């Protein structure tokens, strides 16, 4: 088990009902971690429309979650 902080933004934050949460998970990849969160909160976004970041840098879905890291799920952006 690893303990991580998950960050949610924009419509994902609305769906989850929180900005961040501390989770304990045995997920082997960031993709599995998203699937767990998506099931827990009914996030509604298919993973292939999102990107993922770890500790403030873009990461890959197949990366392994690290204990103590901060993981953000990034829905399609609309800045500028």
């Amino acid at each position, binding site marked *: 088990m690893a303990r991580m902080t998950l960050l949610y933004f924009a*419509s994902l*934050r609305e769906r989850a009902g929180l900005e961040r949460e501390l989770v304990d998970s045995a997920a082997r990849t960031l993709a599995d971690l998203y699937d767990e969160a998506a099931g827990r909160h009914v996030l509604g976004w298919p993973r292939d*429309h999102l990107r993922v970041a770890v500790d403030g840098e873009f990461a890959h879905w197949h990366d392994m979650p690290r204990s103590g890291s901060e993981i*953000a799920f990034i*829905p*399609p952006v609309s800045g500028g």
Partner: protein
Amino acid sequence: MLCFSLKSVPINVSAIVAAMDRPSVGALVSFEGRVRDHHDGHRVTKLVYQAYADLATSEGSRVLEEANRRFSITSIQCQHRIGELDISEIAILVAVSAAHRDAAFNACRYVIDEMKMRLPIWKLEFYGDAAAQWRHPEQGQIATVLERSP
């Protein structure tokens, strides 16, 4: 010099541009992205920008470094607002100085296009005639429609 930042107060364009003046600069191009009062037939009353600040700052700085490698520019300043914005406020400023105009125009276009695609920043639009909505342009049909009290 390359400088990207997120701002929670209005962007002061004249101060930014004035600080970019150098004897070697022959061209200065600036772009202002502004909050408009309509979208998809709806009347927009205000916006809120939400950012993943750590990643937006590092990704924004990366875009400026790329532009600096691609074009012969002297300096770039880019600021993006976060928080609540009224109609006509500046949401993003890109200002590029260079010896010659081609590099300044091209770098400015490159920077605004990349920022719009890559910055982890999201826009919540408030409408005069519908519920507020987070904009997720790639998948507008999935965007959450928020139930908000008036």
